[in-house]
């Protein structure tokens, strides 16, 4: 029995090693995805082009302006000499943010009164706008403290349409937030696609027909197919975690063994779906299409891309039917908050139920279809 399973595992590993596409998917894809997502979510929060209309032109206004320039959130593109010019620069897209310092700005600080600076933000991209506001507030607060006048206030004005999205910290939390999601997605994608492919390829090539007349039992074939792809999935996760740590400086806050354990639980459902797809596809193309069909709701509804809190009620309920939804809560809990089972059990239980049910049904179907 084990010799048969071992033969299949060995063969699968040889095939993985010889297939550049599979290798790329296991090793390069996780790193690439992490870099892409990491930067895509990063570039929007810094180096925002800024124009300045300084009517005060004193030591305090210069201090505030240089503070804006020094943070890295803003790039000072130039000084203009009217409010209209600030608005025009934003309209034209030359600037995302305008800073207006009224004539009394410095005097008010000296007189220990509330000193008003105005931040005008292009709100067409809420993410950018919010980052600009946070950064502006922080800089103003910092400068206030340094001049020991806790009363420099940045205010907002004008064509700002802010939507209350989940609060991103203006540091690199977006990357932190993306990494657990990506790991979940990579785990699901890889096990699902590779497992389905590994079986459908044999059907396409006619080798499955051969295996059926050998003493291999269908569950042995199943185990032999699953183990290599679970192993590669964990390799992919290791690559992703390594890139996260080395490149983005993101470390897992909680227990790594717990992460691995609960990932295995999550894999049950992806493997199950992969097996199911393999039983209804005749070709790898069909399997791919089905896999994308299954993956899309996972990406959109699980909270990987969009916060579930802002979704309509019915969509939120639909999201509860997706295993990745629970796994993301677990991943973010362990990686970002460092919490353990005592907090996570509410997500672990549905994940386990899904895993056992989906895998069990698919495995039964797989046996029936093969026998």
């Amino acid at each position, binding site marked *: 029995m084990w*010799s048969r399973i071992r*033969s299949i595992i*060995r*063969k699968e590993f040889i*095939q993985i090693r010889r297939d550049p596409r599979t290798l790329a998917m296991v090793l390069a894809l996780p790193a690439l995805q992490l870099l892409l997502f990491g930067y895509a979510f990063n570039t929007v929060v810094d180096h925002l082009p800024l124009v300045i209309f300084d009517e005060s032109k004193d030591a305090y206004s210069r201090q505030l302006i240089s503070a804006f320039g020094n943070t890295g959130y803003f790039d000072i593109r130039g000084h203009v000499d009217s409010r209209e010019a600030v608005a025009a620069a934003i309209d034209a897209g030359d600037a995302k943010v305008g800073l207006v310092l009224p004539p009394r700005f410095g005097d008010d600080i000296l007189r220990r009164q509330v000193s008003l600076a105005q931040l005008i933000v292009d709100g067409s991209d809420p993410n950018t706008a919010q980052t600009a506001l946070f950064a502006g507030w922080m800089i103003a607060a910092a400068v206030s403290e340094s001049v020991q006048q806790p009363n420099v206030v940045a205010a907002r004005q004008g064509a700002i349409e802010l939507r209350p999205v989940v609060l991103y910290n203006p540091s690199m939390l977006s990357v932190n937030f993306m990494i657990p999601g990506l790991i979940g997605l990579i785990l699901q994608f890889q096990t699902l696609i590779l497992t389905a492919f590994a079986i459908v390829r044999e059907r396409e090539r*006619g080798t499955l*027909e051969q295996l059926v*007349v*050998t003493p*291999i039992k269908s569950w042995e074939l199943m185990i032999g197919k699953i183990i290599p792809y679970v192993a590669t999935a964990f390799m992919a996760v290791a690559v992703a975690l390594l890139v996260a740590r080395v490149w983005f400086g993101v470390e897992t806050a909680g227990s790594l063994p717990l992460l691995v354990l609960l990932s295995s639980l999550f894999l049950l459902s992806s493997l199950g779906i992969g097996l199911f797809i393999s039983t209804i596809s005749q070709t790898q193309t069909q399997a791919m299409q089905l896999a994308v069909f299954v993956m899309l709701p996972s990406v959109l509804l699980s909270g990987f891309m969009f916060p579930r809190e802002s979704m309509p009620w019915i969509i939120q309920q639909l999201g509860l039917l997706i295993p990745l939804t629970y796994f993301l809560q677990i991943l973010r809990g362990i990686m970002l908050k460092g919490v353990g089972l005592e907090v996570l059990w509410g997500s672990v239980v549905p994940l386990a139920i899904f895993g056992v049910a989906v895998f069990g049904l698919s495995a039964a179907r797989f046996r029936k279809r093969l026998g």
Partner: protein
Amino acid sequence: MTASDVAPVISVRALTKRFGDLVAVDALTFEVQRGEVFAFLGPNGSGKSTTIRMLCGILEPTSGEGRVLGFDIAREGERVKQQIGYMSQRFALYEDLTVRENLEFYAGVYQVAGASLSGRLDELMTMAGLQDRQGQLAGSLSGGWKQRLALGCAIVHNPPLLFLDEPTAGVDPVSRRRFWTMIYGLAQGGVTVFVTTHYLDEAEHANRVAMIHGGTLRALASPAELKRSAMQGQLLNVTCASPMEAAALLERAPGVNEVALYGAAIHVLVDPTRTSEESVSDWLSDHGIAVGNVAPIEPTLEDVFVSLIGTATVATGQSTTR
């Protein structure tokens, strides 16, 4: 001699398989003896594959019974599998594995033990002439090599019974000859070979041929016997102008039992007591057909098959071209 040496390797009685209303295999009864090369001949869709799947223990018969190597195919399918070799026309090889890795994989699947493994692999590679290619990827082999490697994989565990499902499809004539030499070698060593084919010339290699059509057994004998007994009368080869027209005319000629077109020639089965070569020739001339030649010939299996089935649904003599 023990009982198992004389007992038939395959024995089926009234074996039947229905898929819904369709009767794929209808009450087959036959036996195959040890060391025999047994051909199962029939057109596509005649029930060959269904029969082989039942004999391999992967498809349950609707009714009837069958024993393979002493095991009941309906209840002991798993035990049958360990004892048989199976090779299909698709040469189920892993193209991204080397020659040796393919053999090793199937050896593992059949649990060929560690100590004897290396010797067995060398033996198989020598038999297939693959010693110098053991590190080559199976996908880069040409058709004949693939076929021999597939055979090697199918017999890695020394099975006493080997199923070959359309084994020489798409292989050049030289490789086919070499392949059949290997098969005869195995049969000589006591291996029973059950081969399905829809190529008539392939069936000529067998000790006995079962002709199957529409799920029923139409004839079962050695190729020579089939040619002798199944054809009642004398077979004539006729060449003439406008053969289509001539064939239609001959259907109505006195003493003619059967007419079949073979390219530009016509095969005519006649009753020698009622007609002769001359009278056939005269009959055609009288009806305005310019006759080239009329001569008696030995029937081929194809003639037998056409005679038995009534229609030329079987691939013709040029079987290597598909």
